């Protein structure tokens, strides 16, 4: 599906926690075609900024083939502008962008590992998985956050999808006291797991290496700075592995084009 530019009308804007907001946008053309793991480039200013660049945001959920939802953590001027839009206002979007998650063709065990606002794309993924060949009882959702409030609303939403959720918090205020990656040890080692992950880079690295060790299929959604999101600037490079990867004598992967979702083995984690 080729990306396009459009104006999306804000239909709802819900505060999740202190600095996290969920926007509901009416934009059927996008909602109909966006697949889990894809993202949009949203204008984070009036006119030509600042900020100058658009901001990449994952598709958090698609409703009724007509609306999309974004989960936004305010970290700077761009996210502040976008998260501050009120119902009735419009936001300029370019999308759908990038290569999303590859959904399993058959049923099997699936593990979702999300960290903080990185969980955004995993929600749409999980609802599609459960709407498809995957049964709730063969799914495990591990969510990590700094503290309980960061993650409780999301955990509730995942549970509402029917998925069993386990939580880890840095401060122990909810669930396991520690890193979400440590929950991976709870997966029965005998089984094979298909793992999907999104979150801070160190978290994904741990997940990826854990899975590579066990030869479990694992897909991660990377984040980089992006100027365009449409593979025009080549700014979003990450070192790749294999024949076309840097580590294999080749070059860089482009997160907005070949990603943001990669197989764990495609990324040169050591670089």
């Amino acid at each position, binding site marked *: 599906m*080729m990306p396009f*530019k459009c104006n999306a009308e804000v239909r709802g804007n819900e505060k999740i926690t202190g600095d996290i907001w969920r926007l509901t946008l009416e934009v059927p053309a996008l909602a109909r075609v966006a697949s889990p793991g894809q993202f949009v480039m949203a204008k984070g200013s009036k006119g*030509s900024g600042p*900020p*100058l*660049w658009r901001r990449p945001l994952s598709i958090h959920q698609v409703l009724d083939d007509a609306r999309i939802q974004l989960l936004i953590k305010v970290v700077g001027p761009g996210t502040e502008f976008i998260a501050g839009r009120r119902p009735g206002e419009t936001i300029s979007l370019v999308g759908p962008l990038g290569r999303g998650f590859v959904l399993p063709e058959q049923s099997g065990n699936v593990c979702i590992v999300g960290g903080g606002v990185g969980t955004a794309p995993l929600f749409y993924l999980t609802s599609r998985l459960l709407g498809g060949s995957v049964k709730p009882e063969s799914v495990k959702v591990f969510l990590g956050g700094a503290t309980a409030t960061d993650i409780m609303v999301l955990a509730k939403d995942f549970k509402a999808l029917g998925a069993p959720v386990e939580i880890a918090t840095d401060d122990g205020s909810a669930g396991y006291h520690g890193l979400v990656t440590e929950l991976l040890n709870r997966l029965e080692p005998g089984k094979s797991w298909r793992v999907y992950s999104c979150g801070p880079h160190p978290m994904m690295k741990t997940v990826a290496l854990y899975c590579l060790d066990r030869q479990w299929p694992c897909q991660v959604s990377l984040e980089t700075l992006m*100027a365009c999101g*449409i593979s025009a*600037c080549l700014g979003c490079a990450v070192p790749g592995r294999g024949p076309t990867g*840097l580590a294999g004598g080749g070059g860089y992967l482009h997160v907005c084009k070949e990603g943001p979702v990669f197989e764990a083995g495609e990324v040169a984690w050591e670089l």
Partner: protein
Amino acid sequence: MGIVDDRLQVDIAGGLQLNNPIMTASGTFGYGNEFSNFVDLDRLGAIIVKGISLKPRPGNPPPRIVETSCGMLNAIGLENVGLDNFISEKMPFLRKIKAPVIVNILGDSLEEYQTLSEKLNDTSGISAIEVNISCPNVKRGGVAFGTDPAMVFQVTESVKSRTSRPVIVKLSPNVTDITATAQAAEDGGADAISLINTLLGMAVDHRARRPRLANIVGGLSGPAIKPVALRMVWQAANVVRIPVIGIGGIMTVEDVLEFMIAGASAVQIGTANLIEPDTTEKVLDGLLDYVEQNGGRPIREIIGTLQTG
């Protein structure tokens, strides 16, 4: 908009006539196909593709880009597919587009520029060559070429001697006297000059106490640099007789008019494509409106009409 509107036509580079003055700046428009869903590529004045070198280049390590006030720095490091892949993989698509295709080339040595020119001369579907002598990201060769008039003369002359295609020489703004390099390009036989490439800049992460670009320095582009670009276009247009192509921070049709009035026969849109991928076509529509509001006078009549008296 299938029919050509001759009121927008402009001449650049050795008899090459463009249907309109709106071109894409190298490195900000991929190889054209990335934008096929955002603009009607056939309508563009010309498409200039990402700079091509003889061999594929992986480019610089990340981070490669950083946002600045009304601008951005890039140190892509001229990542590109290399000449052979370009011809085999990218040209088939580009040949189907009605807009002229201009190939931006870069090399580490005179020989590389020459080989590129020769090989492109044998490739069909290429309307002109733009010689990038000014990219600040390549540590060998590139910088010296772009800032020393004698080298500019030499590169221009050797590219010209290997190709029958019109040659545009793209100048670096990181010089004391832009008229010297502009003149050198003209003397070397350039059919046109384009300017400006990016200004050498830097950004610092004060928390990490590290440069924000792995390459330490990068090229500044976007609205921030427009005043410098306009000044240099005006200065260069005052000394050369060949067409001048204006580049730097163009976002709107008003910006295009400013560059043309200052002396540009055509313009290139760069950073704006990254933010609003339909900029080129929007600007083109705006230019058409302008012509119509001005009694249908051809746009070329405004070139170099700046009144400084």
